[in-house]
């Protein structure tokens, strides 16, 4: 009996609170960022770092500048545990608060579930460094922004880096690359691009799958060792990464020949592998380290005043933390650019969308923001929502990441037709009219 009563009481309480949440009005001259964050579950390390960095940057803007042209940034968090239905529940809950600027779930599953919804609600969805590759095509996906890097560009960036290690793209001919990928759609996504590039440059590629979650990789690495490749690309996620490095050591494959992708590039991926990770290299769109002006500023203005979001100060400047900071820069600058056009006030979702579509930060502007060498540049346009992000590569020395490459550009020209083919098929399937640039300039209220 008690259980039923408790259930009824809690249900009633929940109902009351949900009504209350809906009824709360949004303040004027505030721009709201709903954060569908994840601080628990298997990917919590990445989540705490990323959302920590994002919040730190927004805090900086608020305390240092008083907001963006006087418009204060506000946010709240809703725990998703990286699960799709929680992400959806958070979305439905948070969208009742007015003036959401953009959604940043840092989860590909949640992002997919949101694509239809945000298109109806007309609020941008930012999927930095990941997401649905064909959402790069802004003609079909007006509200989705896979900023800086989509999976195809990432592949091209890695191949270009390997070419630079060999001397030139021609020297890739005859080389052997194994891609060890996570057994999920994310892992498989880039298989066609590797094949395309292999055909173009004359190297052989072998794809080997690691079933989720990747605790056991013995047979895969024995196969790799037998194949004797020149390089192994690690396209992992979560526990698969440290296990890969440890198993590589176990079978005697050198870590210096392993190159990791964007989701295998963080401290949390290498530290559990101990010294097996020394010499391992990984791609990144933002360099790690706390020496950049903006990071130093955050430490001085935010952490030294006790307002920092990361619990462990040693993680300041880590890959995920810096990704959060860069994401913060991109979101805030989009708002700033939109405000120049529409007025220095709270913006609607569609206005923010316009802002993102004009988010052009060249190296000079990036330096002015205090992020020189932290990330390279971005050049979003109405039909290119990725923004031509540059990548660099870092090598782990056992204690920290060290940049070992210049900024490299992926081969966007090569990839664009493939992306358009996929997005046009999506548009056909869903009966979406392909936008024109004139329509993109038009902002609804």
């Amino acid at each position, binding site marked *: *009996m008690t*259980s*039923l009563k408790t*259930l009824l009481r*809690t*249900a009633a*309480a*929940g109902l009351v*609170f*949900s*009504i209350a*949440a*809906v009824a709360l009005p949004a303040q004027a001259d505030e721009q709201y960022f709903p954060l569908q*964050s994840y*601080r*628990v*579950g298997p990917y*919590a390390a990445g989540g*705490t770092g990323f959302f920590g960095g994002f919040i730190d940057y927004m805090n900086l803007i608020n305390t240092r500048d008083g907001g963006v042209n006087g418009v204060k940034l506000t946010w*709240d*968090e*809703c*725990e998703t*545990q990286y699960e*799709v*239905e*929680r992400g*959806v*529940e958070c979305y*439905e*809950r948070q969208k*009742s608060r007015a003036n959401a600027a953009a959604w940043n779930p840092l989860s*590909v*599953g949640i992002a*997919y*579930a949101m*694509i*239809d*919804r945000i298109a109806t609600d007309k609020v941008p969805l930012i999927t930095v460094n990941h997401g*649905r*590759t*064909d959402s790069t095509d802004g003609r079909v996906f007006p509200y989705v922004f896979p900023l800086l890097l989509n999976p195809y560009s990432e592949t091209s960036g890695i191949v270009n880096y390997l070419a630079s290690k060999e001397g030139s793209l021609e020297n890739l001919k005859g080389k052997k690359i194994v891609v060890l990928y996570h*057994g*999920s*759609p*994310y892992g*498989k*996504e880039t298989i*066609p691009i590797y094949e395309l590039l292999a055909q173009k440059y004359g190297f052989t590629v072998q794809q080997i799958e690691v*079933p*989720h979650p990747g605790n056991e990789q013995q047979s895969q690495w024995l196969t790799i060792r037998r194949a004797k490749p020149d390089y192994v690309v690690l396209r992992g996620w979560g526990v698969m990464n440290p296990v890969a490095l440890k198993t590589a050591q176990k079978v005697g494959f050198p870590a210096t020949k392993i190159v990791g992708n964007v989701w295998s590039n963080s401290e949390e991926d290498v530290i559990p592998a101990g010294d097996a990770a020394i010499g391992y290299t990984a791609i990144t769109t933002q360099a790690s380290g706390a020496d950049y002006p903006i990071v130093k500023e955050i430490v001085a203005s935010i952490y030294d005043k006790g307002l920092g979001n990361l619990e462990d100060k040693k993680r300041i400047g880590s890959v995920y933390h810096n990704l959060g900071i860069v994401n913060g820069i991109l979101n805030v600058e989009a708002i700033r650019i939109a405000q120049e056009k529409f007025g220095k006030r709270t913006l609607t979702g569609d206005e923010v969308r316009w802002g993102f579509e004009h988010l052009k930060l060249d190296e000079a502007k990036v330096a002015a923001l205090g992020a020189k060498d932290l990330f390279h540049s971005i050049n979003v346009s109405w039909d290119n929502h990725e923004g031509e992000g540059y990548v660099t590569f870092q090598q782990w020395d056992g204690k920290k990441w060290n940049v070992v490459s210049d900024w490299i550009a992926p081969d966007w020209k090569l990839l664009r037709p493939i992306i358009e083919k*996929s997005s046009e098929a999506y548009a056909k*399937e*869903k009966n979406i009219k392909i936008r024109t640039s004139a329509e993109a300039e038009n902002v609804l209220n």
Partner: protein
Amino acid sequence: MAAITADRADGPDALAWVAPVAILIVAFTIVPLLGSNYLIEAIMLPFLALSLAGVGLNLLTGYAGQVSLGSAAFMAVGAFAAFNFNFRIDGLPLIVSVMLAGGVAAAVGIVFGLPSLRLKGFYLAVSTLAAQFFVQWALTKFGWFSNYNPSGVIDAPALSIAGIVFEGSVGRYYFALIIVTALTFFAWRVATSQTGRNFIAVRDNETAAKFIGVPVLKTKLLAFALSSFIIGVAGVLWAFAYLRTVEPAGFNLDRSFQILFIIIIGGLATIRGAFFGAALIVVFPVVLSRIGSFLLGDMFDSGVLDMSERIVLGALIIAFLILEPDGLAALGRRLWSRIRTKVGSPSEA
């Protein structure tokens, strides 16, 4: 199990019908009219899908006593099958695709249910895990299932029954509600028929059942088939009405456990148990996180709350198994009979 079954066709007892009919009226009219978008999108739709899955699993595990840890795999089969039928066969009405998808799930259910002819208890549970892992792998590996989508996800089509289009959150709610009502009624009919009694006989004492002439093999396979059919359709609802886009990872082992928890908490061997259990499972995390963020705000990590939720959920399972193994349904029944005694119904002792 204390009660043989909690749902008996009570015959001419009119009061027994009051509750279900009242609930249906509320569900069809009041909820969509007064309910906020949030209520429908984030609470009612997952509730409906999970309840239906619970109803299906209950037929198999509650009534027929065959433990299955792979229910999420059948949801996945249903969802992907419906997508493929709808996408590949032009002009096929959606509702036919849904029913065919249920049929495919039923067929897969029979295949993975075959071991039940020789295995019992844990061994059967472990073999249903084979279904779980194999199906998830197959759906991810073979791009054909998701139409070679580079991200392996399927997008839901527009929903329609017999030409009437159900769009918008209210529309999808009605779509789901109609299907759930129809299939729940169907399940109830099965449970109260001879088939249902056969299920219970097989569950309680297989040897005796065989002795009195129950066709044990056929009964078991029928349980798997019917249960998987319903769970498959529940998967379609989950994918089409609720999430609108789905990848195989969403139908993982955690989901299977979730459905099992639903029927344990709700009450095994009852139809309404699935609804009680699903209500708790859906509402509880939301309520907890709302209360938490309301009371504690920025002070506490949202993570702390969520770990607590995991603990409380596990503790609830244990508590229910110890204190009230017949679940919320039994609690509900006791409450209901107390009300009826007060009302003074003649059929109560």
